[in-house]
Every structure is written in structure tokens, then in C-alpha cells.
């Protein structure tokens, strides 16, 4: 067991978190082991690698990983490292191939990870057993409705068990039609000098910062900026009022949900939401048929942030999917994809991809604001006295609201329930002595679940 005093790092009673969790290099190494080497991590989507030989690269923690569809159409994932000397086997970001050939000595692996060819093998080796020198596989790769996840853990819960009640919410994006969701285009990738946990909790739960941190953008985009309404996501002009009515933050440990539940405000930040709303309303009856009233009427089309522990965020309405990759205690890389239901008409898809770029892409007018905060929070803790400080996430504590979906709900998207849950889950994963203990022992509120 570890030497960290987790009860003082994360104090659920006071809703305080030690600032050192964003700074301490030893805690970071423990995170790579306890969280990123054991949890189910998002790798990619079927739509990105539909054919045999299609591959993409991503990270699991700091490990460079190749995800590839083999000749048998199975998706596998491997460490991007040659069994011989460890050089990267693939330097391309994505593509289609019959083999991965190391650029150092030319060892070649097939798309199932087998070592297929070694230059001069007969002439120089008497002791080489190719069957023992394949690419190192990610222990388990499983798929939920097109979403490919992997884990380094040989044992422990399967993906469906790990997702748990989050699947109820994910289905609003993944299962709104028989064809399901697809990712669109190449991801925006930005590296920021900040700890990986900060962009995660910001995206899954921080409704409080929206109107103030992004005040400049809010003046020019969306319902307020475009003069369509005096509020955006329940927040009034100039951050002066807030209406919690009909909004929730939901704890479904290890995951979280934030939603406006009004069925349309996912498009509140769009300048030209008309065609998106038209498509939404045209498809709503069939979504109600597939997923029922709660999801079809309240969740479909709402601003809904789904936080899948540890580092995946799916944001409906804004229609983006983000993965946060840690890069040392003081840096992370964010990869942001556009997403839409496959049946979405091309003109609506184009509005969505442009909107994602203009708001949360590399030059997005909202995304650009947040990097400053994450850097400051992380690196001001370089100071010994500063990192003795605690962060506080007490907002909305004790406020409960009835909610028909699974999970325990608290009212309003300006609330800190999701962020508190994230740190509680972080503590749970860090202290879990085996993989099964990463999941909470008591199952959450199951009402409304399928």
C-alpha cells in the first residue's frame, strides 16, 4: 500500500482537496499505476478504423498505444514499442497498413501483433523465437456501441460493468439511432502546462465558470451574444442571475453527468442552431421510441456533460468528445473530436464541426480561456506555502432533487457535485488494493435504469 495520507489529501467531510495532488511527482507516478494502468480508458471509435488494417495512435496514461483492426476485423491495441530495442513501431497518427515495421532494425509485425519478419534472421540468430516477441498487447480491449476502450488490467470488471449506469446516459449519444454515433475529422490537440485532473473536473462539472471565465466569448456567441435570450444555460446576462430549475448534476460513481434537461440547450452556444434544432425535433419521436420519455424528451438535445472516469468527457449538444492525456504532473494533452449521429444530414454535420472548431478547438474562443487557470492552479503549487492550501468544492452540498434517471441528483448545472464525485472517485481508485475496488461497492440509485 502507498505512503500517502489520502484522508488528508481528499477530505469528503469538508469538501477540500490538497493542492499537492496537482503538484506532487510521487502522487503522479502513483496515478499512472493505480488509475491509468488499471481503469478502462477510451481508445477510439469504430468509425475511425472501420476496415482491416486501419489503425490509430493514442495514449493510455503516458503509454503510446497503437489501436488496429486486424485482418480478422478484431480490434486490438498494443504498446507502440518494438520488442527488440523499444523504438516506436509507428510514427503516423492514423492510417491503413498491413504491418508495422520498426525504423531502427526493420523488425516487422502484422496487424494482429505477431512478429512476422526479422531481417537476416537465419544468418544472425540461433536463439530467436518470433512467437515470444510479438507486440505487447493491451490486456483487454472491449467495445460499447462503437466506443473502443482498453485496460492494462488482466482481471477486474468488464467494460459494461465499469460503465455501469453511465451507459444509460451514453446511449443518448451512442444509441439515438440504429446506426449510432461517429467521430468526425482529426482531433484538435493542445498541450497545456497543467495537471490532468483540472481540465477533467472543469469539463464534467464546472458550470460556475462558464459565464465569468468565458465572459468575452459570452458577449459575442450563443443565445446572449446573438440576442436570442437574456440567459444561457440558465445563467443570466453578466453572470447576475441563475435559475436551477430543471437542471441536474448526477453522481453515478465512478462517473458523472451534468444536464440542462430542456432538450434543446445543447445548441445554446451556436450562432445558427436552426438546422440543428430542426433535425433534433424531427428525430425526437424516434429517440423517444428507442430510449423512452426521460431520455428522449429531457436528455436528447440538452447540454449534457458525461464524465467517464478517469479522462473521457462526452459533451452532447456542443457535440464534442475530449480525452485528457497526462504528460507528467504539470502537463496534459487534450484531444478534442467532433461527433454526431451517423444519420445527421451533411449540412448539420458541417455546422457542428465548424462550431466545435470555433468554440472548443485549438483556436476555439471558449477553450482558449481555460488553459490559463489550469496552469496557474497547477504551478502556483510549486510554492511550498501555496501548496499547503486546500481547494474547496462545497457548492450545492446537501441539495438533493428527485430525478427519474439513475444516480443521485443535485439541482442546477452551477453546482460542484460532479467535481466532488470526481475527487472521491480519484481517492477510491488510488487506494483500491485490487481492480474491482476501483468501482464503488454500493451500487448507486438504480431507478429508471433499463
Amino acid at each position, binding site marked *: 500500500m502507498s505512503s500517502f495520507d489520502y484522508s488528508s489529501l481528499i477530505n469528503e467531510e469538508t469538501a477540500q482537496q490538497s493542492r499537492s495532488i496537482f503538484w506532487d511527482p510521487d502522487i503522479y507516478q502513483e496515478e499512472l499505476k493505480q488509475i491509468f494502468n488499471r481503469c478502462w480508458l477510451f481508445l477510439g471509435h469504430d468509425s475511425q478504423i472501420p476496415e482491416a488494417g486501419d489503425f490509430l495512435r493514442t495514449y493510455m496514461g503516458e503509454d503510446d498505444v497503437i489501436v488496429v483492426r486486424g485482418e480478422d476485423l478484431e480490434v486490438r491495441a498494443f504498446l507502440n514499442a518494438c520488442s527488440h530495442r523499444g523504438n516506436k513501431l509507428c510514427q*503516423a497518427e492514423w492510417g491503413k497498413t498491413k504491418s508495422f515495421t520498426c525504423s531502427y532494425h526493420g523488425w516487422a509485425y502484422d496487424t494482429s501483433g505477431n512478429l512476422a519478419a526479422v531481417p537476416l534472421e537465419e544468418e544472425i540468430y540461433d536463439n530467436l523465437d518470433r512467437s515470444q516477441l510479438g507486440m505487447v498487447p493491451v490486456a483487454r480491449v472491449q467495445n460499447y456501441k462503437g466506443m473502443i476502450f482498453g485496460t492494462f488490467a488482466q482481471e477486474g470488471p468488464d467494460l459494461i460493468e465499469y460503465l455501469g449506469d453511465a451507459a444509460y446516459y451514453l446511449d443518448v449519444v451512442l444509441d439515438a439511432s440504429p446506426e449510432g454515433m461517429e467521430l468526425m475529422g*482529426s482531433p484538435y*490537440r*493542445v498541450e497545456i502546462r497543467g495537471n490532468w485532473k483540472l481540465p477533467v473536473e472543469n469539463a464534467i462539472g464546472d458550470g460556475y465558470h462558464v459565464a465569468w471565465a468565458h*465572459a*468575452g466569448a459570452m458577449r*459575442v456567441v450563443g443565445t446572449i451574444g446573438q440576442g436570442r435570450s437574456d440567459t444561457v444555460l440558465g445563467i443570466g446576462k453578466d453572470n447576475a442571475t441563475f435559475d436551477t430549475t430543471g437542471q441536474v448534476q448526477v453522481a453515478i460513481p465512478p462517473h458523472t453527468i451534468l444536464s440542462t434537461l430542456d432538450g434543446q440547450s445543447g445548441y445554446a452556444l451556436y450562432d445558427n442552431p436552426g438546422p440543428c434544432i430542426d433535425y433534433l425535433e424531427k428525430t425526437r419521436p424516434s429517440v423517444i421510441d428507442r430510449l423512452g420519455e426521460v431520455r428522449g424528451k429531457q436528455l436528447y438535445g440538452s447540454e449534457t456533460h458525461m464524465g467517464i472516469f478517469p479522462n473521457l468527457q462526452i459533451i452532447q449538444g456542443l457535440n464534442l468528445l475530449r480525452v485528457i492525456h497526462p504528460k507528467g504532473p504539470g502537463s496534459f494533452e487534450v484531444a478534442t473530436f*467532433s461527433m454526431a449521429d451517423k444519420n445527421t444530414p451533411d449540412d448539420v454535420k458541417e455546422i457542428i464541426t465548424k462550431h466545435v472548431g470555433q468554440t472548443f478547438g*485549438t483556436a476555439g474562443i471558449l477553450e*482558449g480561456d481555460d488553459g490559463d487557470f489550469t496552469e496557474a492552479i497547477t504551478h502556483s503549487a510549486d510554492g511550498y506555502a501555496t501548496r499547503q492550501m486546500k481547494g474547496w468544492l462545497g457548492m450545492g452540498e446537501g441539495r438533493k432533487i428527485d430525478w427519474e434517471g439513475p444516480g443521485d441528483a443535485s439541482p442546477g448545472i452551477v453546482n460542484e457535485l460532479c467535481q466532488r464525485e470526481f475527487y472521491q472517485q480519484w481517492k477510491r481508485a488510488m487506494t483500491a488494493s485490487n481492480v474491482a475496488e476501483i468501482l464503488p461497492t454500493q451500487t448507486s440509485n438504480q431507478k429508471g435504469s433499463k
Partner: protein
Amino acid sequence: MAKKKVVQLGKDTDINTAYQIERFLVAEARILDEERYDDWLTYLDADISYQMPIPINTYRRNRPSNTTFSQTMIYDENFEKLQQRAAREDTGMVWLNDPMTHHIRTITNIESFCTDDPAVYDVRSKFTLLRSRRNRDHVSHTGSRKDTLVKTSDGFKIRSRLVHLPERVIIDKNLNMFF
């Protein structure tokens, strides 16, 4: 690599036009450095297309597939969107730019070519954009641009700009500046 043909981009403009175009691009860089965004908007054609693609890091001989990975734009703006970005900068509520963010744009390797339309020029240039803010955020971005300039009675206007910034992972927090 396969041998590539030398591509003839077009007939060179006359020296006076080339000089005027160079002065135009340099003045544009200066007014952007000076945060004069309303003035900058007058340099743009109302039908401007302003784009910056993400560099694609696939193998040179990438095989075709039905993957959804594709060309994706960091900037894909029309005049209204650029106006919106300029208006955001002018709100005084972009906290990242207060204290002021400093920009130094250097425009060089300017090539001006004639097109089929005598009032339209194909202009290529290279740039370095240094952005400096706070104590230590000094990042220099170098790239190339392909512009279409239109000569009007009110001077040149930028009808299209395609910016190539060869940075796959951006290490400067964001690219919220005009190139």
C-alpha cells in the same frame, strides 16, 4: 521521393504591384500587432474565406480507407466569424489578454503572382508570429500563407487566406490570434 515538377504559380506581377502588395501585408501585420481589430476588418473582403487546417501526420503513402479521420480546420471562418472574434478581443473581458498579450508578426518571402482576373493576385508569404504574455509565455509560431488579394478602389482586400502552421500538437495553450 518521387521527382516533382516545378510548379509555375503564375506570372509575376509588375514591380510596382509587388511593392504595393508587400506594403499592404506589412501594414496588416502592424495593425494586428497594435490590436486595431476594427481597422483590420476593413482589410478583408466581405466574402473572405479564412482557413487553417490541422497538419495531417500520416505516412506519405497512406492507403485509402473509409475512416472518419479527415482534413479538419482550426480556423474555417467567414467575415462574420472573424468579426465575432475581433469583437471578443475588444470586450475587455478576455482575461488571458489582461495584462496585454504582445504580438510581433514578421512577414517575409512574399511572392506576388497574376491570375486570370487582372484585379486578383495570388500572394504567398511566410510568417513568424511571436506571442508573449505573462512572465514566461513566449511562443514563436512560423508558417506559410496563401492569400488571394483583390484590388479595389479602396485598396487591396483579402478574399481568401489559407494558413499552414506545421504544428500538430499546439504547445501555446491556444491559437486565439489572427495569422
